[in-house]
């Protein structure tokens, strides 16, 4: 499933278009521990987290993730968005909790609809 389909279905707010919305999403990974994401996420995954600081961009870039979804109405600071544009990483935000977003994305990827 393409990233833009998930963005539309979940009404995610796109904060940095760096990586575009055409990437194929292979799955998702939910974690707020950066070393855990480095070790266990997979290429093309959407990363769901409440972390907003700029190191999340390096993690997404190094692991070739499809994008980062920041949950619970949290807003990434300017420095994070700037880095995301530089490294071509797409960052999205949502009011939903990690549980809710993950559940919806799981349904979309596994069942094809919510």
């Amino acid at each position: 499933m393409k990233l833009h389909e998930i963005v539309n279905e979940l009404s995610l707010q796109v904060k940095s278009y760096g990586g575009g919305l055409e990437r194929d999403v292979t799955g998702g990974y939910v974690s707020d521990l950066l070393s855990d994401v480095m070790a266990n996420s997979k290429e093309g995954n959407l990363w769901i987290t409440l972390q907003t600081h700029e190191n999340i961009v390096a993690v997404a870039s190094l692991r070739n993730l499809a994008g980062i979804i920041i949950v619970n109405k949290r807003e990434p600071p300017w420095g994070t968005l700037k880095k995301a544009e530089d490294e071509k990483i797409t960052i999205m935000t949502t009011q939903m909790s990690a549980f809710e977003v993950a559940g919806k994305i799981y349904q979309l990827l596994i069942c094809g609809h919510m």
Partner: protein
Amino acid sequence: MRETIEGSFQLIGGNFARAGEASIELKRRLTELGLSEEIIRRVSIVTFEAEMNVIIYAAAGWLRYSITPEHIKIVVEDMGPGIEDVESAMQEGYSTAPEWVREMGWGAGMGLPNMKKNSDEFKIDAVVGEGTKVEMVINLSRGK
């Protein structure tokens, strides 16, 4: 790739804003060399974890790499506090990171274990009050 390719990056302790730049640049070079995704994944993990350790704990350090047809060697050396109990530090979940670093999602005690897990050879030397040196080799021929 016939000859040895070498390079190095300087790392500044406490500079979270630039954290990951060395690892991302090295990943770019490995991608240009056409190395496999699996090798690039492992190198990315070990270099980024080592880079973060310097940024979190040390005053400054160096990340040096050399790439031969057989392997990639990464050496990260810092001027920092060293490690009092290396055996504990190698255990998953053990960390001495301060609370504010943990709130950023670091300091979960996964750094050194991740480095070891993703290297074919792993060596650590730490002298308290002087610094830490980590040497890692990832084989290109027959990975583990």
